[in-house]
């Protein structure tokens, strides 16, 4: 997994609540057996009209969203299906960070496994970012996982919480399985305890 330490990037704003994983990656694209190549299908039914033409009105198709690495949305982002394809699609499209006031649990988990950093910020901070973005289309944010801050490089900065274990793994690009296998003795002992009642 690619480590994540710090990132400065353009911001794409999605003023929507309850964005579900069926929208993030529609089911017709779940049939692939690889982890890669999902970016082209991200938000497919919103990005493209039925005839395949680009839907300019959709947030990610607007000029200021081009090349964005940070996605900002409203409450309960990633609800619905457990499909990890949603995290793969966002990452493959180019996003590394998602900011929202709240996330659905399974999606939140899946992000960390794929070098994608979901950050829960208070409504006030999210509103501030939306207001800034509306004023300045070239607006950038810096996300620092080491310092646990989001800032606009000028005056505004906000801290965020992140589970220490997830932070460590992401900072170092560590894969969970490798770590867990170090607990082989504990797992075997547990299995033995269960076997013998």
């Amino acid at each position, binding site marked *: 997994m690619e480590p994540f330490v710090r990132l400065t990037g353009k911001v794409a704003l999605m003023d929507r609540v309850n964005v*579900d994983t069926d929208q993030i990656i529609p089911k017709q694209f779940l049939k692939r057996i690889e982890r890669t190549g999902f970016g082209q299908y991200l938000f497919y039914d919103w990005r493209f009209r039925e005839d395949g033409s680009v839907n300019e009105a959709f947030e990610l198709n607007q000029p200021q969203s081009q090349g964005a690495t940070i996605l900002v949305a409203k409450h309960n982002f990633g609800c619905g299906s*457990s499909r990890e394809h949603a995290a793969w699609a966002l990452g493959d499209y180019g996003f590394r960070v998602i900011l929202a006031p709240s996330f659905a649990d399974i999606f939140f988990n899946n992000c960390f496994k794929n070098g994608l950093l979901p950050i829960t910020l208070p409504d006030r901070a999210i509103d501030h970012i939306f207001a800034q973005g509306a004023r300045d289309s070239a607006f950038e944010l810096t996300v620092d996982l080491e310092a646990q801050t989001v800032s606009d490089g000028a005056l505004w900065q906000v801290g965020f919480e992140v*589970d220490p274990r997830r932070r460590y793994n992401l900072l170092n690009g560590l894969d969970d399985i490798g770590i867990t296998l170090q607990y082989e003795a504990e797992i075997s002992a547990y299995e033995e305890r269960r076997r013998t009642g």
Partner: protein
Amino acid sequence: MRPKTLFEKIWDRHVVVSQDDGNALIFIDLHLVHEVTSPQAFEGLRINNRQVRRPDLTFATMDHNVPTDNPFHVTDEIAGKQIETLAANCKDFGIELADLNSANQGIVHVIGPELGLTQPGKTIVCGDSHTSTHGAFGALAFGIGTSEVEHVLATQCLWQKRPKTCEVRLVGKRAPGVTAKDVILGVIAQNGIDFGTGHVVEFTGDAVRSMSMEERMTVCNMAIEGGARAGMVAPDEVTFAYLQGRERAPQGEQFDEAVTEWQALCSDEGAVYDKVVTFDVSLLDPQVTWGTNPGMGISVNGRVPDPDSFATETERRAARQALAYMGLEPGMPITDITVQNVFIGSCTNSRLEDLRAAAQVARGRKVAAGVRALVVPGSKQVKEQAEREGLDRVFLDAGFEWRATGCSMCLAMNPDFVPPGERCASTSNRNFEGRQGRAARTHLVSPAMAAAAAIAGHFVDVRELGREAAAASV
């Protein structure tokens, strides 16, 4: 000793390693696998030269993109590849698979309980959010992503932060015609689609005690639609009676021993939940969703809400977007909404009792002109039993299609989908945009309500349909 909740009892028994930062390595007793969320996990094992630690605790089936007209005729090449890949992976890693030839094949959340694999006190995971279904037996069951599938395959464990607990107390007595599906739709409409985020929900109260196992499964299945990590119901005599004699449940003396153990699986008197929600089922009518998330539900006798009636601007906008997508006007009576498609199936409502309830409505009646109605049993066992009872005849005579098992129109990964702009009365669990097909409009209802809509051609209170028929037959 401090009183514990059901969740805490199961959690504590499964901690392998616990860390100071609140994370724990949890042992998994049953890992269910299906074709859509597993290929990348097996690929990961291969790349890293890892084995499946406990094939004996792993069980696979094919359900999501299996065609239900002729399951052996997979016309979609990539879907076919996924089905073949699962078969090859199971063979290579020594995992038992209920494939298309197996008498046990079906939707993963239907066959787990049916085979008796799902048992009280177990930790159960699957790469599918509706794994919450299995909590109906007093198991701790939750959906995971593909990376976690790989993690469980390799280690039989998962790192978890201990979730919070939420009690949903279901009180009162349901009116006739009001089903478990209506109860859970009502709970979510009242509390929102994220009330359970970060929590394991335990359903308690008389209204859940009086439910059958299948009804409890419907309720727990949709706990995830309220955002919950898992849904659960403490096991009782109803649970034990359901499990007795099931193929993979403990047999004979071992069963009695198991029951003794299972009886301890309840929240202790005085146990504290992080959150408590109460819901009175006695006031409930049959529900119909009008919008694009499962929380946008209302009584069948109600009207499409006015977006301006919502409290916040964000909600108003979401409601406006939903109505535009659904092609509905505020103030319109729900019973004026016509349907062109009806889907009775999915891991929420495709079990025997569901089919019986729908058949009871369909018996001796005809599907309205212009309506396409599908009945898709959740498993081969359900299908066979239904056929023994003659339910297939009832449906076929009424003009429903009687299909092979699978997820089908629930997520339309197989050839069953709702055409653009058309409506579907569906017994599934998600009415998200495009879920049943591009621009398809989904209304979630119970099986009896879906059958009633098929007959009437529009939504109708199933109790009224009964009365009309009764009046006509006098």
